[in-house]
């Protein structure tokens, strides 16, 4: 065998083997200890929101259109949202600033999406307010000296209550339980806050305090005695979940600007599993038809192209797992589409080959001419597909449509890998078959004329 073919063949077999190993759904990953170098990769399949279930929201600064929001406020907001997201304990979350004073948040696999979004997007401004001589009802919306309530709520009265202390003065907040086992919030104050609170409570024993969160009253206890040790409790008939969510909001500070949800997509987990099944079936059927078609139309080269196509599928999917690319349903559709497109290069080459053979050229020369002459078309048309993918990626980026980006990415990777397999791999196979093994029968190449031709024929 020609040395070049041997090297290429070994390389291809190695790549194919590794790719298949990684691509296989239940692959254990690569865990090796090579000459002291440890490789410990699991290569899990990253499922997108529409497969795993979860929620994606676009949070936007909730300010009147005329107010400008500066970047540093958005950045601290993003930072706080990120910390809150981390506290939710979701695997592979995403928090990202987007243009137009927006934050993209993705929470794959979350159990209570609506409550989670509320936890993230609520300003979380805790206020200790002077309620005067009567307690305020829980749930009342009030206007405080720190500012009025934001969109969606109106204060119950026109009275503006004085804020004594805010969540900024909290040193820590934790979930605790009272003697009946009801959840409450234990908090400690900073030394500054402790002094402020101590002074106020000393002067106002017997009066009512109102504790509000985002302008809504949680509870309104009476000040029984001065509180100078800087510790306290907020008990407001919380469920455990509510107490935990509140602690998350308090712990990292309140948002510098209010946020509202302007776009939200939630997918329940049940749709995903079914859709994956159907996509796999569709993919296998599609692949099968293409494989059969290639053999029927191009005989021997078709078989070789089919082998190259299978290697293509394995390599591409292995790349998805390795990079990793987050797989969405549209992304899987892109992958299946690219399987149909991957053979295009081969078809162009083979049709060119048939033309050359019919014109009387020798087998080896026809193969060479096929690859050479078809290359400009292959290059140009795949390039235009890549341009389209770039535009699609940008199109999806602006409104956080990761589904569109997933499609663009899988298609682009597919196109690039297909260039490699269609040309390099098929060419090697053909060379091995013709030059090394010495196959000559033209009928195997799809022609019906005289069955044999010299190896270096007349041009």
């Amino acid at each position, binding site marked *: 065998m020609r040395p070049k073919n041997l090297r290429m063949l070994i390389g291809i077999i190695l790549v194919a083997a590794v790719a298949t190993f990684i691509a296989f759904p239940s692959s254990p990953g690569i865990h090796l200890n090579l000459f002291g170098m440890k490789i410990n990769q699991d290569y899990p399949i990253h499922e997108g929101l529409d497969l795993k279930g979860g929620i994606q929201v676009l949070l936007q600064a909730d300010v009147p259109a005329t107010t400008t929001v500066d970047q540093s406020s958005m950045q601290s907001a993003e930072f706080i949202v990120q910390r809150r997201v981390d506290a939710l304990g979701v695997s592979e979350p995403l928090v990202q600033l987007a243009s137009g004073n927006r934050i993209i948040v993705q929470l794959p696999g979350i159990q209570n999406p609506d409550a989670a979004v509320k936890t993230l997007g609520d300003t979380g401004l805790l206020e200790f307010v002077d309620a005067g001589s009567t307690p305020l009802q829980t749930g009342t919306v009030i206007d405080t000296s720190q500012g009025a309530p934001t969109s969606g709520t109106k204060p119950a009265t026109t009275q503006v209550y004085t804020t004594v202390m805010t969540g900024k003065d909290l040193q820590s907040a934790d979930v605790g339980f009272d003697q009946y086992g009801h959840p409450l919030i234990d908090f400690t104050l900073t030394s500054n806050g402790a002094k402020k609170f101590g002074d106020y409570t000393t002067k106002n024993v017997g009066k009512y305090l109102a504790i509000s969160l985002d302008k809504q009253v949680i509870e309104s206890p009476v000040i029984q005695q001065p509180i100078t040790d800087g510790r306290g409790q907020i008990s407001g008939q919380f469920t455990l979940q509510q107490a935990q969510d509140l602690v998350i909001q308090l712990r990292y500070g309140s948002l510098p600007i209010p946020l*509202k949800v302007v776009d*939200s997509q939630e997918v329940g987990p049940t749709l995903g599993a079914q859709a994956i099944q159907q*996509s796999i079936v569709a993919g296998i059927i599609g692949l099968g038809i293409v494989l059969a*078609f290639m053999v029927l139309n191009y005989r021997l080269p078709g078989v070789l192209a089919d082998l190259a196509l299978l290697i293509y599928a394995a390599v591409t999917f292995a790349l998805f797992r390795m990079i990793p690319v987050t797989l969405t349903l549209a992304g899987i*559709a892109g992958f*299946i589409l690219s399987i149909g497109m991957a053979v295009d290069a081969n*078809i162009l080459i083979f049709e060119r080959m048939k033309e050359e053979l019919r014109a009387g050229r020798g087998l080896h020369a026809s193969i060479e001419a096929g690859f050479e002459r078809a290359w400009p078309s292959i290059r140009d048309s795949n390039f235009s597909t890549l341009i389209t993918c770039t535009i699609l990626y940008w199109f999806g980026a602006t409104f956080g449509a990761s589904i569109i980006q997933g499609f663009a990415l899988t298609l682009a990777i597919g196109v690039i890998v297909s260039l490699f397999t269609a040309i390099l791999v098929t060419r090697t196979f053909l060379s091995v078959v013709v030059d090394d093994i010495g196959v000559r029968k033209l009928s195997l190449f799809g022609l019906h004329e005289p069955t044999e031709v010299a190896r270096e024929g007349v041009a």
Partner: protein
Amino acid sequence: MIDLVARRYLFFLISAIIIIPGLISLIVPPGLQLGVDFTGGTLWEIKFTKPVSADAVQQVLTAHGYPDSTVQTSAGNVVLIRTKEIRPDLPIKGQITSDFQKQFGALTELSFQSVGPAVGGEVWQRSIEAIAIASLGILLYLWWAFRKVPRPYAYGVCAIVALLHDALVVLGIFSILGRIITVQIDSLFVTALLTVIGFSVHDTIVVFDRVRENNIRHFGEPFTQIVNHSLLQTLGRSVTTSLTVIFTLSALVLFGGSSTRMFALALLIGIVSGTYSSIFNASMLLVVWETGEFKRLFSRFSPARAAA
């Protein structure tokens, strides 16, 4: 040897026949059924454990201040609701959900999509921009790829017209489908459209490359003959390359999940149209342009002639 080029006006006619119904459907309101991606609003899919009537669901929504909602039922006690925006971070969504639970029993939320009006307008704008940029990018690329040919812009423009043809075919068919089975246009549809544009050019380039090659090889022959030759030579591979893609897409449409079905269908229609337009539109237009028939066609209607 078949002379395809001689029949070019026949193929223009066929294209017109395919496009015109769709065009009419697009112009007559409501044209396209736009999804919440573009109009803003909420799309909510809920699975109940018992059969539920659309009217009953409608009443609950009206009671909460959403009188203009559409409710569809489908197999498996699934209800699809479309309303104005219901923000998930405000209490209203929880209130509606608990009302549903009280009246209709246990439910699972299959999907919930809510788009604010501002974002909807942006998606629309972005879609138009993306399509414009894609077309411009392709035009520029073709201009560069065919720069050594006399009048390279001819190739570019003809490719763009073929591309517009494909876009109109897909849009037209989906407009008609929107009337019959209420298929909605969403951002995924725009994705399919952009992909179709990319693919349409992919195919046109294969044909044009051959025209360019033959133009050099058979220099001196009449252009109509060169194009005809090229078409017959590339017919095989144009159709074949499209066939493999059509196979995989058909499998997706028939066996794939419901959420990608319309997406795959748009791609399928677009690619079939793209193959047709590369052979029977783009090349024919090129002939009409290069042989000056274009100018002659227009001179028939020019005022100078009329005055003569």
